[in-house]
């Protein structure tokens, strides 16, 4: 029987396994050194904040895997030999495969700062990172003060987490506002104010120079590029993530930043696929980045590769871009493409509405000349995926979108509606 081995039990690998099982009775083995069972990485923050227990993060009951005849192996893959189709595990064990799916995810990206390997310097990607955080910052006596370097989605999550344990947090953000490389300025500035309102010392235009050693190998503080010193016991590194591909360096599998794959998600080696955060498209798909470290894209690649492996080849051809996040109390959803002020395409025009309470806003992007609706960012107002996806597929005129915005509202019942205010503001 064909043996499909999946390295990595995150959303990409597990989705692939589930769909392969649905379509076939191939032997499936998932290998992970991180955890025995699949858990929701995006929810790690809630364990530290006390909203959930770690076991609540597991989307499937433990019996699910044996019931579906999916073998789980807790082991670290050290080396891949594609000639003999063998995986060499850390304990000296080997596993052979017929089909290999690499879904190893990401690790925090560090940029060679002095002191970046001291105790107390960490990212927040894996279960082990969370366990480390419980050691480094269990409470505000052990860790009265923390500095977070980088202002992405993980950065703001880490700030929120530490804040719940009453640990003082300074965030260093290189841009002029939080996440302004991704969000249009109006939004980035609103979220920046929201972060500050929660008592986070958000410093924009600030960069890390080096991390200071207390003489015993622990963090004692940092120095910014402007020469300012900030004492702290924890340095959260959230300057993005990079594909976890270290174990492939001696293999014949071709890599760049990530594992290079074609549209079929195949690597240069036959019967070896890569999906999720660790995969890098040889040519970017549409306006997407070659490496997409997002939950949903990992899932979609898993859905796609499973069909291919089960004899119905499909290219990875994702639909309209969408994403979501939550910044403290403000939810964010995006559908289609809305680029930041800095990265805006020359044909792209924005309509921006903000509620006076400074917790809700919306940006609609459209084509300057054709008035085609390109995308929408919404903060504090939930939108209906199905409706926006349809409008994007139908290439609707932006005026149509504004006029029918009510149809896309997904807020809970009885919530105040803002469509008429938005429509008043958006006279196109």
């Amino acid at each position: 029987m064909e043996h499909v081995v999946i390295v990595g039990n995150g959303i990409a690998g597990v989705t692939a396994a589930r769909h392969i099982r649905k379509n076939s009775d191939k032997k499936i083995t998932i290998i992970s050194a991180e955890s025995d069972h699949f858990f929701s990485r995006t929810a790690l923050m809630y364990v530290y904040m006390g909203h959930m227990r770690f076991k609540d993060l597991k989307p499937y009951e433990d019996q699910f895997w044996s019931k579906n005849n999916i073998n789980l192996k807790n082991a670290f893959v050290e080396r891949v030999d594609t000639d003999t189709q063998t995986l060499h595990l850390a304990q000296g064990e080997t596993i052979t495969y017929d089909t290999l799916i690499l879904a190893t995810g990401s690790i925090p990206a560090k940029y060679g700062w002095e002191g970046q390997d001291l105790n107390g310097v960490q990212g927040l990607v894996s279960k082990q990172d969370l366990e480390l955080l419980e050691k480094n910052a269990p409470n505000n006596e052990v860790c009265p003060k923390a500095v977070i370097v980088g202002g992405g989605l993980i950065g703001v999550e880490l700030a929120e987490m530490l804040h719940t344990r009453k640990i003082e947090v300074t965030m260093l953000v290189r841009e002029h506002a939080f996440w302004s490389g991704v969000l249009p300025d109006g939004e980035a500035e609103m979220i920046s104010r929201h972060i500050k309102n929660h008592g986070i010392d958000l410093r924009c235009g600030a960069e890390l120079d080096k991390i200071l050693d207390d003489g015993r190998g622990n963090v004692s503080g940092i120095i910014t590029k402007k020469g300012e010193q900030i004492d702290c016991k924890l340095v959260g590194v959230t300057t993005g993530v990079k594909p976890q591909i270290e174990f492939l360096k001696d293999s014949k599998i071709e890599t760049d930043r990530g594992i290079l794959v074609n549209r079929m998600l195949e690597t240069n080696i036959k019967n070896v696929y890569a999906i999720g955060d660790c995969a890098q498209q040889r040519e970017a798909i549409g306006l997407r980045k070659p490496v997409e470290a997002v939950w949903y894209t990992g899932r979609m690649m898993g859905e796609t590769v499973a069909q291919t492996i089960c004899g119905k080849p499909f290219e990875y051809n994702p639909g309209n871009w969408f994403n979501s996040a939550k910044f403290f109390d403000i939810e964010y959803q995006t559908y289609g493409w809305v680029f930041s002020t800095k990265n805006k395409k020359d044909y792209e025009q924005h309509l921006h509405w903000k509620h006076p309470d400074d917790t809700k806003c919306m940006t609609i992007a459209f084509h300057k000349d054709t008035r085609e609706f390109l995308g929408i960012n919404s903060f504090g107002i939930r939108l209906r995926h199905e409706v926006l996806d349809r409008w994007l597929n139908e290439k609707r005129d932006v005026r149509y979108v504004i006029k029918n915005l009510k149809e896309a509202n997904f807020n809970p019942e009885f919530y105040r509606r803002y469509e008429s205010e938005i429509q008043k503001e958006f006279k196109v």
Partner: protein
Amino acid sequence: MSTIQRDMSLTGQPPASINAIQKLGTALGVVGLLILLLAAFNINFPEKPLWLSIALGSLFGGILIFTYGAYSGKHEGIKNDGVWFKSVSSRGFLAWVAGLALTGFYIILYFKAGWLGLNTEGDNTGLIALFDPLSRLLSGNPASQWFVYGTLYTIAILAFGIKFIWKYRHNRYERLRTLSVMFFQTAFAFLIPEFMARLNSENFNLPYYDLKNIWPLNYYNFEQYRVNDFISAGNVGLALLLFGIASIFVITPILTYKYGKRWYCSWVCGCGGLAETAGDSFRHLSDKSTFAWKVERWVVHSVLVFVVVMTTAVVSTYLGYDADKYWLTKDVFLIGVAVFLTLLFAGIWFFKKEELKQDARYGAIGYLVIVLALSGIHYSSGSTLFLIPAETLRDSYGFLIGSIFSGVIGTGFYPIFGNRVWCRFGCPMAAILGLQQRLFSKFRITTNGGQCISCGNCSSYCEMGIDVRAYAQKGENIVRASCVGCGICSAVCPRGVLKLENGAADKRINSREILLGNDVDLMDYVNQN
């Protein structure tokens, strides 16, 4: 059993302690409880109205001050920080103390009311006597243990209701829903029945009737003494009796069709009201395993069968055999019930074949038991059912379900099993509404395309133990019999994935293999297979 999270190697203590204002609130609440406790130990307070006011005021004020301390300085938003770290909300020491104290209170309330000061002869003493002035003010009669319980129950719903509204002040659905349960508890469960009692005289006697307490939750509604009271109270009484019948056979199906069972379970019902307010801090303790779900389906539907058989048996005991005296004889009644159930079941079998797949067997078993029981009544002489007297059946139901299940376990064990144990495993009303919701309703929780990240907040905070995530991560709408529509899954979702709504009845579930956002061709190919 300590289930406080230890599996993430917590080396330190996260801030789980309470602040100064919360301590003040706690102290005030304890003063109120202490006065009640002293009264229960027969301390005879001289100025009863004053001391009762102080006691109840301290309880109410204590909860409000605690709430102020907890939420006043915080931003609008989800307030679940430290839920699994706090002793009281993570089955720690405080939770067990609270659970055992509540359980003890229920046992005394149901079975040893004398200890609270209820005297068969002579005036009330002790705790119940302390409540006499308030009872006299409302109904003109001295208090009973049920009046004491009702008063404390109402205060709990009001004070914790304010706490809940404060906690979810950003969420209008939660605010309105909570105002609704506060209103129905205060007006319908507490005040109106007391005022109705004022109307009673020697030749006019309405039974104590909480209008929103519908059979079969109100399992004794059609007992002989009540029916006699209703009929003897003229048009008003008859109207109430008819309202009681219409409630379950007409009003309930219509409202459940339009809005789902939430219109009752989380907007009107008193049990639900207490669970949603005082029980809110324990909602995450419900068991989400598929095993628990299986137990739930068996137990709650068995209770439903039990209550139908019991009520039929009890009603048939006081109906006569002589059709000349009154058209509704025992035989007519029993045949009527059998025909009604047969038609109902045949209708479901015929029109809802698709939905029934997995649940059909359970329904069939329940139906069979009922019909067998009915024939048992019919062919047995006198008032026995399989040689068990109907009264025994009624008493065992009252003891097992009415007292032990709904009170002692259902509420007493809030801090251990979660706040909806009764509603989920025991309530026959919830079972009926659940069947309607599953089969004949426009209500569903819509999953927002492919936006779910499987974080598990929804499942964790579902008080009914529904694994909401299991549906959301498949892009499938949630149409579960047990969902009471509290809306918390939607509130705690960090990605805006869930929305409670009433919509077209077809395509309510909308299951698909590949989620929205992927390749259109792939979605078509796989979802059509």
